[in-house]
């Protein structure tokens, strides 16, 4: 864990513009938590208004909800636009610095690795590493979802501590199982994929660079078979990642649905006992949704960050190769 953080920090330092990244992430942080609060409060007030037959209060809740949603949409859109611009420049900076560094290596160092390995370092390693910031769920999502989890947890504790305890049992066990059986192996599998991709690129490259020798010595079939073998190896490693992701999907359904049913049962009892209104139960479900969505986002982001570590480590390894003076 510590080495992953250090590797990520080293890569950010190498790319530069870390202050801008911190500011943009901080600006992005409140969005998910605010959205959860707005939605939960809207549902609570709307259902209470429906229950009490108060049409004015319902109009008021709907109007306020519309204005706040518009504000959140504009705020979030502006921050993400700035963030997208930042990421484009950040990826470009990493690629440029890596290229500059590799071009400054001695011929002996360059020749020590197959061409495919260098192609992989310039392409698939950069793609894997920059997924830290430019795939669907990435590092800032992990930070944003963490803030969302904290805020919704505090609200849930204030609203109903018993329900919060129930929710947290399911969420915590989900995160634990996910870390043990999915996130941890993913890091190793991603590293295997990068290595298999490099080998595959080397085999593919041989078809071009050794074309004259291959034609003269009738080696095309042999090279094709080797390329096919390395392609299969690469696919096998990628399939292992897909298996883990399928496991993650199954775990999500299992834990999500069982938690939902337990809260529904307890909520029904409390409403019957007059300890809770239907609007409050809906709001609790909304907060639970926020907590779960935050947790899922956090888990997925962590998994993606772990996968990206394979690329980050290989980029740092390339950048640590001493250049010719």
């Amino acid at each position, binding site marked *: 864990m510590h080495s992953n953080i250090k590797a990520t920090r080293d890569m950010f330092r190498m790319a530069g513009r870390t202050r801008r990244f911190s500011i943009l992430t901080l600006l992005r942080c409140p969005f998910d938590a605010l959205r959860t609060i707005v939605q939960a409060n809207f549902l609570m007030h709307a259902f209470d208004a429906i229950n009490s037959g108060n049409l004015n209060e319902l109009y008021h809740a709907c109007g306020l909800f519309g204005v706040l949603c518009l504000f959140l949409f504009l705020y979030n859109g502006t921050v993400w636009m700035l963030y997208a611009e930042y990421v484009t420049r950040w990826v470009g900076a990493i690629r440029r610095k890596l290229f500059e560094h590799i071009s400054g290596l001695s011929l002996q160092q*360059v*020749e020590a*690795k*197959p061409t495919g390995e260098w192609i992989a370092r310039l392409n698939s390693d950069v793609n894997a590493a920059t997924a830290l910031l430019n795939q669907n769920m990435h590092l800032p999502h992990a930070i944003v979802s963490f803030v969302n989890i904290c805020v919704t947890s505090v609200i849930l504790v204030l609203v109903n501590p018993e329900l919060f305890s129930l929710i947290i049992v399911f969420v915590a066990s989900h995160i634990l199982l996910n870390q043990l059986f999915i996130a941890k192996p993913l890091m190793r599998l991603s590293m295997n994929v990068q290595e298999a991709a490099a080998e595959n690129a080397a085999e593919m490259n041989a078809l071009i660079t050794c074309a*004259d*020798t291959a034609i*003269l010595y*009738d*080696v095309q079939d042999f090279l094709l078979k080797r390329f096919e073998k390395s392609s299969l190896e690469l696919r096998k490693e990628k399939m292992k990642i897909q298996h883990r992701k399928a496991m993650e999907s199954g775990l999500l359904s299992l834990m999500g649905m069982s938690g939902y049913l337990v809260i529904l049962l307890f909520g029904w009892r409390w409403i019957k006992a007059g300890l809770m209104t239907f609007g409050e139960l809906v709001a609790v479900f909304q907060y639970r949704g926020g907590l779960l969505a935050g947790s899922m986002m956090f888990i997925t982001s962590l998994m993606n960050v772990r996968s990206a570590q394979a690329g980050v480590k290989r980029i740092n390894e390339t950048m640590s190769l001493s250049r010719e003076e």
Partner: protein
Amino acid sequence: MSIYVENLSFAYGDKQILREINLNVKNGESIRIIGVSGCGKSTLLKLLAGLYKAQDGIIEVQGERNPEQIRRQVSVVMQNPMLFPASIKDNITCGHPMSNETIKRACDAAQLSDWIASLPDGIDTYVGERGGKVSGGQAQRIAIARAIAKDAPVVLLDEATSALDGDTSKAVIAALESLTKGKTVVSVSHRPDDLMEYNRIYRLEGGRLFNA
């Protein structure tokens, strides 16, 4: 006649490289073609190897005119040979079925056996495509062993002795002598040298071939 070339001309687009080349090489003869860089030596060698198709004129190697058939009759050794990202053994056999005896003979003749014996994985040692894991001399001797194992009647050498230094030249020359023994040899180089003996020497200039 092992190699027969008549009025051979070749151009890359508008740039004429070879003009009306005529050449006859008998079985077992060795010839050397010298010329400055870019004069078309390597192009001529690629045509003789069946890697390029003649645009004008005739190329006949061991009685074959079809480039695909010509390729079966020749072995080529280059100055900087490309090795496949595979084991030494695969680089010699090129994936073709070959007896251990044939492989051993090729390694002995190419002066590789002692070096291979010193490697932990022996002949199964992995080598990179540009010889990154082996020295230039070793990579060249692997390429020579590959050519010996093919046992083609015609051997084409492209600057094969141009970059030899003191330490590796003896071994490479010995390997080349084993490869070319009793074969028809065409060697091209940018400078004359006395490392190997030839029956005739030609000079390629302005796309035309002259006696040197």
